[in-house]
């Protein structure tokens, strides 16, 4: 074969002719001309010449991925890599934006756990709740002030915090409003897993234990409370008991392998595992140690239990044990899709590790153990499965969990008696699969 430019051009023309100006190689050309391409390329390689495919076909771009024919992907060149990865165009994952109360602006978004595969929530799907929107914080200007009942009031930069000994934990966290409590003695028949679990997420977190900071500033022994305050326009502030701050509090700057997302507290958030989310201040700017509660609006007017008998219970911050069957769950229809061959769900305890999850498929008469998929970690979501097939009849599906600290997920009746409000409603949830395939929420 000659190796002058005229010959190359004529060979290129062979391909040009297949698809006009665009240089696009059609499937038909590849199928028909495949042998010629291979023979030509082999001969070029044997001659030691550089093969410049830019002249032969369009440069693959990230958009090639979208444009390609999907029926026969093996007959096409694929997309070029991108600096930031993307989900498949067939995967449509979104948070649900929420507008609370009479406000005209969105105040949060929720995680749809029916879209979460496993237990770690992708960072861009983590739920969020704000009181004055998401502040934009320049990390070089970020400061954390720690003062009050301490020997040495101090200020920390982001670099300071990142230089201190780090810890890594998987933690689930939830809004005080997570859960779907019954109203007027009835559960919401139409509630979905978005309603009962959407104000919660679970991530891998990296940060510094607050204990380290407390030792640096030397908190005085008479301190019993601390105010934690945020950088946002609400200056969100809560009083936290000193035991929690010593034992189980973290200043987190890493989330799922990257800096904490803005809506989850960039550059630094407090995380109090097991406590209602409102206490885990995002964008934390100030911690003031004291020997009394500060009686902020978010612990007297809001995030307090205003009971029908006239009493107000404060500091109902402790989250309990919860479990949810996610597949199937409310709003699904088992007649419309191939029905599942196992139940899948999640369990969590705000006190410790999940010790067991039981499933009833007969309205609570008999119970069998579900399989827990480890590692089972304290204050982290645990996935469970249970073999089950739908027989086409009306059936009730219930899960209940308990933890290694002796706490059980309670019934609606128990919660009505002992915790008429409280943090994060966690009553035992029952889904009813109707003979039509429709799944609804029932009392028990």
């Amino acid at each position, binding site marked *: 074969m000659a190796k002058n430019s005229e010959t190359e051009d004529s060979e290129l023309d062979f391909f040009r002719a297949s698809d006009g100006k665009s240089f696009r190689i059609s499937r038909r050309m590849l199928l028909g001309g495949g042998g010629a391409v291979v023979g030509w390329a082999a001969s070029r390689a044997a001659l030691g010449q550089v093969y410049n495919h830019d002249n032969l076909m369009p440069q693959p771009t990230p958009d090639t991925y979208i444009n390609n024919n999907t029926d026969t992907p093996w007959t096409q060149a694929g997309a070029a890599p991108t600096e930031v990865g993307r989900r498949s165009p067939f995967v449509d994952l979104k948070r649900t934006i929420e507008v609370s109360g*009479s406000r005209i602006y969105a105040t949060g978004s929720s995680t749809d756990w029916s879209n979460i595969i496993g237990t770690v929530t992708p960072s861009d799907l983590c739920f969020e709740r704000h009181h004055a929107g998401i502040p934009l914080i320049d990390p070089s200007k970020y400061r954390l002030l720690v003062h009050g009942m301490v020997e040495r009031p101090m*200020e920390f930069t982001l670099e300071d915090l990142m230089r201190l000994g780090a810890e890594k934990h998987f933690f689930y966290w939830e809004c005080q409003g997570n859960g779907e409590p019954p109203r007027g003695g009835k559960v919401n028949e139409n509630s979905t897993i978005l309603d009962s679990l959407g104000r919660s997420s679970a991530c891998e977190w990296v940060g510094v234990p607050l204990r380290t900071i407390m030792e640096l500033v030397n908190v005085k022994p008479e301190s019993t409370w601390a105010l934690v305050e945020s950088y946002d326009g609400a200056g969100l502030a809560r009083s936290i008991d000193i035991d929690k701050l010593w034992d189980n509090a973290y200043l987190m700057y890493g989330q799922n392998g990257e800096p904490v997302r803005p809506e989850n507290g960039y550059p630094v958030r407090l995380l109090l595992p097991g406590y209602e989310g409102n206490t885990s201040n995002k964008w934390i700017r100030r911690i003031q140690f004291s020997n009394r509660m500060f009686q902020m609006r978010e612990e*007297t007017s809001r995030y307090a239990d205003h009971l029908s008998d006239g009493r*107000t219970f404060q500091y109902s*911050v402790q989250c309990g044990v919860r479990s949810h069957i996610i597949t199937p769950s409310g709003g699904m229809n088992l007649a419309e899709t191939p029905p599942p061959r196992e139940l899948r769900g999640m369990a969590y305890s705000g006190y410790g590790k999940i010790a067991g999850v039981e499933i009833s498929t007969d309205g609570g008469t008999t119970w069998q153990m579900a399989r827990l998929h480890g590692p089972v970690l304290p204050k982290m979501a645990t996935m469970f499965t249970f073999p089950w097939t739908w027989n086409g009849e009306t059936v009730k599906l219930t899960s209940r969990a308990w933890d290694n600290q002796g706490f059980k997920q309670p019934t609606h*009746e128990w919660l009505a008696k002992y915790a008429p409000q409280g943090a994060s409603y966690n009553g035992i949830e029952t889904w009813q699969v109707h003979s039509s395939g429709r799944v609804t929420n029932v009392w028990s």
Partner: protein
Amino acid sequence: MFGLKLRRPVLALLFALTGSFFFTGSVVEVAAQDGASPADQPIGRSVSESEIATWDIDIEPDGTGLPTGSGTVASGREIYDAKCVNCHGPTASENPGDTGINPNLADRYCCATTLFDYINRAMPYYAPQSLTPDEIYSLVAFLLNLNDIVSEDFIADAKTVPAVTMPQAAHYGVNPWTSGVIEQPGDPWSHDNP
């Protein structure tokens, strides 16, 4: 065979030694320049009381943190109508349980200082921390009067606000179960009606 077995440990040892030599050398060099190892850079910075004062905005129930200034019910009404009414409504009760202030203030607050603190840190929503102490005192006086907690001639200042007794104050308490300090009472799996 003997040589092959030894090769790896010897190489590893060699690497460790040269590595540590290089590392020590560079540290000594920096230390000679700066008088300290880079690792000795202090973490955090001590702050003075005057620096703290610019950040320390909270108002405590005994009045700690309240600034000098004062406000009347009448001046509070003017400020409310100018800066608050768009969200909270003409009578402050338009959105009960949400942006409603009346009657939330009577039912859901233990301390009048909370009102000053919250308006100061978070209101108005579109311009937080923009109000002067006199404006905030005025709004506190107006809202307390609107909820029939103080009289029309009430003047709010650093002494009178902490002294107000909020109607709900005596009914505040802690539920030991939900604050996580006791074991779970009763049978959590019972379906007996309470």
